[in-house]
């Protein structure tokens, strides 16, 4: 498993185009908001957290499509099964890869985009980053599950977004209502605790579904 993680991290380091592209996509989605809705500061501050979350979700879901495709096509997943007899280690490695290659850059860059939309630097922009961090286990789990379900599918990328966006809605609701509370001077923590609980629950259960889906994918 450690070898798999190390291999994936090396691949990420050597081909930075993939995750840089995801980051650029994220920035573009967020940057379209002031252009489409008008540069009124009060409005932008109200929608900033939501826009950053939407951008992060779309960027994450679009990159998840590629997470296992190369491994599937090259027969590497079959090799892992033949060697280790189980896919659990492989899935854990993929979760770590998704977390490091896609979510981590998003978490780091989100305060900058929040501030560009008029979010106060402290604590709100920090809380925005924190909300993505709290949502990360759930988002990773769901993303890996979606990637496994759509492995080898026609129109896989679009399909992945279609099946995963409805499932991520609860995370989005708790994260943005927490940030909303913070912006209006209320306590964001009740919302963030619910977000963390839900996210951890999904982070544990969704990879189990991913395991089942991956077994289906390699049967062919």
């Amino acid at each position: 498993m450690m070898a798999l993680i190390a291999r994936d991290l090396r691949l990420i380091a050597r081909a930075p185009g993939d995750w840089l592209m995801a980051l650029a996509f994220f920035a573009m989605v967020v940057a379209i908001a002031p252009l489409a809705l008008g540069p009124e500061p009060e409005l932008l501050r109200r929608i900033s957290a939501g826009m950053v979350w939407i951008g992060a979700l779309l960027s994450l879901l679009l990159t998840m499509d590629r997470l296992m495709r190369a491994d599937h096509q090259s027969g590497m997943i079959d090799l892992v099964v033949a060697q280790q007899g189980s896919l659990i280690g492989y899935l854990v490695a993929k979760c770590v890869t998704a977390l490091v290659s896609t979510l981590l850059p998003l978490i780091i860059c989100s305060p900058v985009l929040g501030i560009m939309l008029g979010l106060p630097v402290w604590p709100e922009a920090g809380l925005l980053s924190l909300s993505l961090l709290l949502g990360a286990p759930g988002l990773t789990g769901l993303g890996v599950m979606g990637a496994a379900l759509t492995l080898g599918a026609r129109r896989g990328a679009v399909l992945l977004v279609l099946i995963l966006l409805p499932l991520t809605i609860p995370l989005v609701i708790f994260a943005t209502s927490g940030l909303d509370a913070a912006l209006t001077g209320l306590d964001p923590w009740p919302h963030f605790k619910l977000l963390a609980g839900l996210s951890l629950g999904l982070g544990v259960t969704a990879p189990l579904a991913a395991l089942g889906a991956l077994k289906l994918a390699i049967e062919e």
Partner: protein
Amino acid sequence: MAAGFWTSLARPRVFARVTRWMLPLLLTAGGGLLVAGIWQAFIVSPPDYQQGETVRIMYIHVPAATISMGLYVSMAIAAAVSLIWRHMLADLFCRAAALPGAVLTLICLVTGSLWGLPTWGTWWVWDARLTSVLILFFLYLGYIGLADAFDRPERGEQAGAILLLVGVINIPVIRFSVDWWNSIHQPASIIRKGGISIDPSMLIPLGLMFGAVACLAGALILIRMEAEILRRRIAAREARLAQMGEA
């Protein structure tokens, strides 16, 4: 005996035999109930003392809502059956029920909107009940997309079954959304703790329409299952013929 009957239904040949008399039965019952229900709903039942004539939207909205949720639950059960025992008919049921379920959810959303404008003063609000039903609609679409996305239909069905099981978490959220959160939508008001709380003059058309939608949805699903079985048989025969041609 009961268990024996239900498991024997799972055999394709028995299924075909049962469908042969079940389908006309469901169609006649559904058609009769629909005529009686529409007559009751539009002519016999009184207008509401508050809502006036708009209350008649209920007679399509409530059956569509309940049955769209019921279909999702039955699809999730069939998905579990299919994942545990790999049974072909369970997969066929999910595939056949997905589109009627999605359409019923859409009917529920549209009639709800049309009902919302005169009674709530708005087409749509983003509250828990309406949003969770909208998610149900997207879950149906996601299943349909996933089930159709693979060259081998079985692979799509098995992947879809996993998705159905994950999405079933939405059903209790829909059911209890009106109790857990402050919603513009009224809480359950047909059967409450103290028994039935709706006047018979409205309960009868509602029951008739409920039966009609259930029977017609069942008939539609049976027709779609049969069509899919026939399509696969044709595909298998074509493959066999092609092989014979090569040899």
